[in-house]
């Protein structure tokens, strides 16, 4: 009973989240985390993570299974709220924002297990990503009354979505249902949708999972293309160390929720601690 009352108290508290004073700092980095951490109950899932990602960097987050990589992503996108530390996007503190607002501020992500809008066509998937852009603003009333603005915005959004799909080589498939795409293209569509939200930082959660070497090669080129064409900063999680060392400018190795090593791929992966974590003594 005491446990129940306790949990009720927590729920009621959760209904009215306390106001968080968010501050702005001077920062040269796109993303800067400050001893970021979260604990579930007594378990410290992630602690003391300090990442500093500069503009146009492709940054890798690696580590064995259960090291807390995806948890870091969930912290950065507002799925979880950090219990310690905080993080800044271009110097603006984003701690405590809900998921959709984190996205509005400029962090977009993909998921480890692909999450598309399966029963919608490919082009509509990307158009959902364009939903919140200033230039495509159109109120519900305008849409329902079918004012000229609605048609204009719809047309522009469709054109923009097609441009994006063209970059990823998905233009031909635009009218297919998303669930009917082959695996590799689903991954690409997820990236295209994330880019449609016009982010400053793109988080990719195991983008090469389940791909064959040829597809992986293709994906590496795509990610480089994204960086150059969209002037993008990318943070990615990946198990494939070849992929990571071939692509990332800098990496951080996590194990048991703490940072094991960081630096260029070569430095970090040759770190004795890292070798120990992966291979054992």
């Amino acid at each position, binding site marked *: 009973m005491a446990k*129940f009352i306790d*949990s*009720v108290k927590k*729920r*009621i508290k959760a209904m009215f989240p306390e106001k968080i004073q968010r501050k702005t700092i001077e920062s040269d980095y796109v993303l800067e985390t400050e001893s970021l951490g979260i604990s579930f109950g007594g378990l410290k899932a992630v602690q003391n993570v300090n990442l500093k990602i500069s503009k146009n960097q492709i940054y890798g987050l690696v580590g064995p299974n259960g090291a807390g990589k*995806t948890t870091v992503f*969930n912290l950065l996108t507002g*799925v979880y709220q950090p219990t310690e530390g905080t993080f800044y996007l271009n110097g603006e503190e984003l701690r405590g924002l809900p998921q959709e607002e984190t996205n509005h501020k400029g962090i977009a992500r993909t*998921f480890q297990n692909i999450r598309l809008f399966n029963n919608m066509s490919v082009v509509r998937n990307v158009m959902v990503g364009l939903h919140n852009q200033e230039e495509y603003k159109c109120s519900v009333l305008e849409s329902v009354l079918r004012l000229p603005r609605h048609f204009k915005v719809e047309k522009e959004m469709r054109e923009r979505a097609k441009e994006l799909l063209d970059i990823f080589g998905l233009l031909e498939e635009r009218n297919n249902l998303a669930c009917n795409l082959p695996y590799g293209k689903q991954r690409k569509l997820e990236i295209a949708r994330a880019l449609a939200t016009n982010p400053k930082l793109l988080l990719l959660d195991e983008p090469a999972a389940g791909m064959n070497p040829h597809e992986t090669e293709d994906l590496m080129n795509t990610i480089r293309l994204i960086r150059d064409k969209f002037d993008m900063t990318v943070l990615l999680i990946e198990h494939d160390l070849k992929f990571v060392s071939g692509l990332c400018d800098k990496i951080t190795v996590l194990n048991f929720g703490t940072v094991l090593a960081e630096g260029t791929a070569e430095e970090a992966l040759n770190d004795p601690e890292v070798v120990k974590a992966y291979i054992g003594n």
Partner: protein
Amino acid sequence: MEFITMIINGLSIGGTYAMIALGYTMVYGIAKMLNFAHGDIIMVGGYTIVLFFPISPILGIIASVIFCVTVGIVVEKTAYKPLRGASPLAVLITAIGVSKLLQSAAQIFIGSESKGVTVNLGEIRMGEIKINVLTLITIACSAAVMVALTLFVKYTKTGRAMVAVSEDRGAAQLMGINVNFIIMITFIIGSALAAVAGVFLVFKIQDVGTTFGAMPGIKAFAAAVIGGIGSIPGAMVGGLVLGFIEAVCGMVPALSPYTDAIEFAILIIVLLVKPTGFLGKKRREKV
């Protein structure tokens, strides 16, 4: 004095709800479906006892259990089994269809006027308190059923297989558990409990119509959800909570017309504060 009467009433109403809710919760946990026809199984049990009561009350109870179990098996095999693996919403609509089917079938065979039996087992006096023997039997019986069910699930092979199926049907199948058999067992237990609950309801209300099981059915469903649907102790807790609310409302004249509304309002409040009910497991989608 009133307080003790209220507690006893609450236990007896709550016990009956709990028995029905157990059927809901077990079917939900194991077959992953909301069996809306469950309330009408109560009605079937009620009619059977009414028919057999003049011959012999004991025979009536046995007959109603057997008949309800038969109906439960037939419904499961003909209506639900073809839809195994189909969407839960399709199964839900089928269950609603079965519910209407049972109601209209009862009307065809028995007629639309309601029937009843009169049972009077006397009262026990303890000082100033008068307690109906029937109420005591209801409480004892529902307690016995709950204990038996808990032991069954915990200590028998079939019971443990049930838990396994409710956790992960696919994995249970791979471990060699006959899932169809387990689901059938679940329906048998659920229907038998509904029959017993139906008998007690008939004895209490003494009046059976075709929609006799609908309201207790919905309330037991609410009880199962309050307790956390899928959880056996949860169904008991939920049933008792609703039973006590009903007993309290029954004692206050200003509240009694609004009993149903109060029960449902409490259901909503409980769910808003604790979205999975008191004892429900929280399954979170992993991001």
